[in-house]
């Protein structure tokens, strides 16, 4: 009786796995099969710019978002009094942030970064010069993506900090280290693998998102490689969307779209791979 049920469950689980693998193979396979020849033909304008743009916006996102997230996590794990109202509110805000649809982040980015921060900077730094920072550009796209990925990094970093044994903190404190020294010289380095896990997850999420960059900096076509963070940029995800929906003749732009899809996968994979390799190295030390 029991073994029959086991066999049934085994078959069910097996077929579920098969279905999943099949779906993955279909998606990846079709992208790869169609993408390689299209890419090889090299008939695709703007792909280099879009690839570099994707890498650049992801790098900006990481540089802006990770320090912010890590400091928030340090506050929550090390400094925040356990049951104070402020702590509860900060935690609730982080959770809420994780649940916000990405298109809302796009609108937030436009309203806050481009119009409020950017225009504000222009008024102070370049009065009468028109829009320098106050228009969509790769900097604000990166900032918007940084906000989108904050919760992931905060949550993983906080958990990593909490896993650092109390004995280690006490060792540092007993040697006359201040709480700040203990946190940044001992505890944070001990939690670095967890922090890097958060970064991996953030990059995995951020590199492929299109909605947050729609209004904050992505351009339909900018053939030159991005050289200024105050310029608009091409992004593989957005490029794919544009090629598939905005082109005059969709059937003619299809090879370009397939090449773009393949590149988007490769770039995301490469970014993830780099972050995972970093984490692996950190965990072996």
């Amino acid at each position, binding site marked *: 009786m029991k073994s029959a049920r086991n066999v049934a469950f085994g078959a069910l689980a097996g077929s579920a796995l098969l279905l999943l693998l099949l779906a993955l193979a279909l998606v990846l396979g079709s992208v790869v099969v169609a993408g390689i020849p299209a890419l090889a033909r090299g008939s695709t304008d703007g792909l280099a710019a879009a690839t570099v743009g994707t890498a650049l916006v992801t790098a900006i996102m990481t540089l802006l978002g990770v320090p912010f997230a890590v400091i928030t996590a340090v506050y929550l794990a090390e400094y925040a*009094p*356990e049951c104070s109202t402020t702590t509860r509110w900060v935690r609730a805000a982080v959770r809420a942030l994780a649940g916000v649809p990405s298109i809302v982040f796009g609108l937030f980015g436009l309203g806050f970064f481009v119009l409020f921060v950017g225009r504000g900077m222009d008024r102070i730094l370049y009065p009468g010069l028109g829009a320098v920072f106050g228009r969509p550009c790769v900097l604000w796209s990166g900032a918007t993506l940084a906000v989108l990925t904050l919760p992931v990094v905060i949550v993983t970093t906080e958990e990593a900090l909490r896993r650092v*044994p109390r*004995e*280690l*903190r*006490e*060792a*540092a*404190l*007993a*040697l*006359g*280290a*201040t*709480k700040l*020294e203990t946190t940044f*010289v*001992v505890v944070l*380095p*001990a939690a670095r693998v967890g922090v890097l896990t958060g970064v991996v997850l953030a990059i995995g999420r951020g590199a492929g998102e299109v909605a947050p960059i729609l209004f904050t900096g992505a351009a339909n076509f900018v053939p030159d490689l991005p050289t200024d963070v105050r310029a608009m940029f091409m992004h593989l995800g957005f490029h794919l969307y544009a090629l598939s929906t905005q082109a005059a003749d969709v059937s003619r732009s299809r090879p370009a779209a397939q090449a773009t899809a393949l590149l988007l996968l490769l770039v995301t994979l490469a970014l993830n791979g780099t972050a995972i390799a970093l984490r692996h190295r950190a965990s072996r030390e």
Partner: protein
Amino acid sequence: MTTTRHQAKIETRSLTVSFDEKRVLTPIDVSIAAHGVTALIGPSGCGKSTFLRALNRMHDTVERAEVSGEVLLDGEDIYHRDVDPVAVRRRVGMVFQRPNPLPGSIFDNVAFGLRVAGHTAPQAIPERVERALRRAALWSEVKDRLRAPASALSGGQQQRLCIARAIAIEPDVLLMDEPCSALDPIATEHVEALITELKARYTVVLVTHSLAQARRVSDHTAFFYLGALVEFGPSERVLLAPDDERTRSYVRGAIG
């Protein structure tokens, strides 16, 4: 302060500790002489570790702990509101139950306290590290691999490294919380020999579960029971001919 008059190194006055408003120590008044080993004995949960951790303000790092009363170090209250707990911990070092090396090399572990204190010139650090490792009787075993990770040492070596690390910053007092409980007999022997040597230079307060250890290394012994200091005096008297009935039962093995 007069140095000629014989003065206690550490003196507690009505010292109590509470966790979540619940008092775990009956007010304790005790006076610990400089240079010498004072053993704190008693059954588990009797408050001896809690008492020990009050002597270097370690409870300050725990949100729900509250200390009241006074702890005089060389006649000055370390809980006075003008006193910085970080400065207290530089004068009162601590060695924990389980060896807790910091991530990083053997050298970095010993240099850590010197670096955070910031008083030592960088070029003077190697010399101070060597001196501390020699005093902790570890130098000959590690001198060729100072850059190796501290976690690669054996448990006994790690504990001696923790002692070296604590004495590198030249404290006056060394608190030890069951430093041998995670060690095998041979490593224990090494650490005990070290404690006996250290008392010439430092005032050592040692929490131990082992009456034999208290007998071997301590000059004075304090017996704690249910959060109270029951008996305190020269070790041979407290351990061999105690006055109090509860101490007598404990050293005979009837309680604990």
